[in-house]
């Protein structure tokens, strides 16, 4: 159970950072050819922030609060690296995360 929760927290951390990054024009353009609308960017930011928060909550279920929060902070670092390197070498993978956004032009 603990391992499942930690795995879920890791995935959510990566998703969270990916969505936060996709809300930025530079990274959006690595994934799609159009521009994100202002409202889409906002939705992405909320989604990203929410994922990171849920990830923290999941961590808190796995261990003592001091340990869980430390795990989460370190997970943030690891996921940010994963997201950055995915944008470098496989940016198109992230198009799955914005599949629900219709192309603007």
């Amino acid at each position, binding site marked *: 159970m603990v391992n499942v929760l930690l795995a879920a927290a890791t995935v959510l951390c990566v998703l969270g950072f990916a969505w936060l990054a996709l809300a930025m024009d*530079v990274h959006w353009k690595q994934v799609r050819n159009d521009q994100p609308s202002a409202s889409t960017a906002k939705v992405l930011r909320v989604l990203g922030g929410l994922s990171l928060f849920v990830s923290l909550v999941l961590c808190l279920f796995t*261990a003592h609060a001091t340990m869980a929060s430390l795990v989460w902070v370190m997970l943030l*670092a690891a996921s940010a*690296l994963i997201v*950055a390197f995915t944008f470098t070498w496989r940016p198109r993978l992230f198009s799955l995360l914005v599949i629900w956004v219709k192309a603007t032009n």
Partner: protein
Amino acid sequence: MFQNFRLSMAWLHTWFGLVLGFVLMAIFFFGALSVFDREIDRWAIPESRFAPQPMPSFDNLLKPIFADMQPGKADLDFVRDKVNGPLPERFDTVVTWGAYTTHRDPVLNIFAGYEVPNAKEPDVTVFSSRTIDPRTGVLFSDDQLKIGSGFFYPLHYSLNFHWMNLGYWIVGFSSLIMLAALVSGVVMHRKIFRELFTFRPKKSTQRSALDLHNLTGVVALPFHFFFAFTGLVIFAGIYFPIGHTQMKSLHDQHEVVEAQETGLPHDRAGVAAPVASVDAMVAEAQRRWAERGMAGEVGFLTLRHVGDANGYVSVYRAGTDRIALTGEGIHFKASTGELLREDPPSTVVASVNEFLTGLHLQHFRHWMLRWLYVLGGLAGCVCIATGFIFFVEKRKRQYAKEGSQNGRIVDAMAVTTVTGMLLATLGILIANRLLPASLPEGWPGRGDLEQYFFWGTWVAVMVHAFLRSAPVAQGKINPAWSEQCLALAVLAPVTVLLNWITTGDHLVKTISEGYWPVAGFDLAILVGGILAFIAARHLRRKGKGAPQDATDFADAEVQHG
């Protein structure tokens, strides 16, 4: 001196980072290895490749071993000049016996401290320590170097440079400068959020090195900050040694008052008394922890004033379920087993200190967090290494134009501390597997020889890095980078192979048996070798290729001041 704050921060970051970066690189890398120091110990001492053991029975197993212990020659050398006249043949007055283990230790560390007669100052104690197999009580030879906890770990906090404690001070100063480098780095970095996820390897080396420098610095910023900071907190007693200098009398008086308050005697009574069953006291301590709902393995067991009426036994638990370095100690009268004291809950200040030290020292049982710490440490290494590369790349044209050799020095030092340090690490591991178990009379100890191989390899690769650095003065890559990467790519599988040949533990066996301490280390070495091979190929291609275009140099330069 500078036009603005940002420029002065850039100056600080560049020059202090350059000088102390070489030290910090070693601190970060060996710190990252120390996360798995006990596992590396098992790799280095094949006889200790079994499962972690709980604290063994004191009455049956430990007591006779302690009773037989006496300080060795090296231990006596520490106190030789602290006594009037010669040292006695035997030390009979035991100040303390202690046994220490963690949830990752198959072997058990024990130590004994003895009062030294005719000492020039009171409280001079001579210590002796041993490593034993807690299942049988068999002693391990002192000659067997625990490469993880006995070499890499002390290298992390003292550089193994013990003359006048200078190593501790260099490390402490570097940590302090690192805190300054982190703050100044954030001040210099104008696009901290906008470029948080940015790494562009296809741009110029200068640009992509800076990307990687920023990326690894920023995403692990909390890690970098807290580890530099807590490292200083842990050794605050060394960096502010007032307890044993200016305030010595106050410090000594405090010990006496504290002993009165806790009821744990400060001195011997001078009346002989036997030791009751310590196992019964340990069982009682575990019962009390269980009542409070805490994990109850014993981490540290210690006896004070052994054989005296004032003797007492302290039992501390291994706090594997918390970050904080707690022990919830329970203390008993040694002669009767009567409960003397249960440590009260920590005060707020003490709890903060326990959390900060525990965060750094990692007694917790959380393998994922351990690996994340390794990642943090390696991110720090990448951050420092790319800092060096950026420094040279940014200045190489100017150096080439002026005919300056400065770039060569920085670059050769960078080679020494990046690939050179890895080669030295493989050097000690290979020496560990190749040296015979017993050496001829008159040779240095086996453990000492392993250390000489480590430093010898490091010096040799440094010479290589400097000898090959001429192209740097013309703005080209030092071939030592790719050559040493290639050496790593060859030596890494050789190391793993030697482990197989000398112990029979190959990866298929260790993985199928689930013996991860050895399998994990072998795998880590192999992954390192593969990465080195990729790097070597990449560097070779780059070395042959045309000079890079300079389109985005201006951008990087503006940003870095």
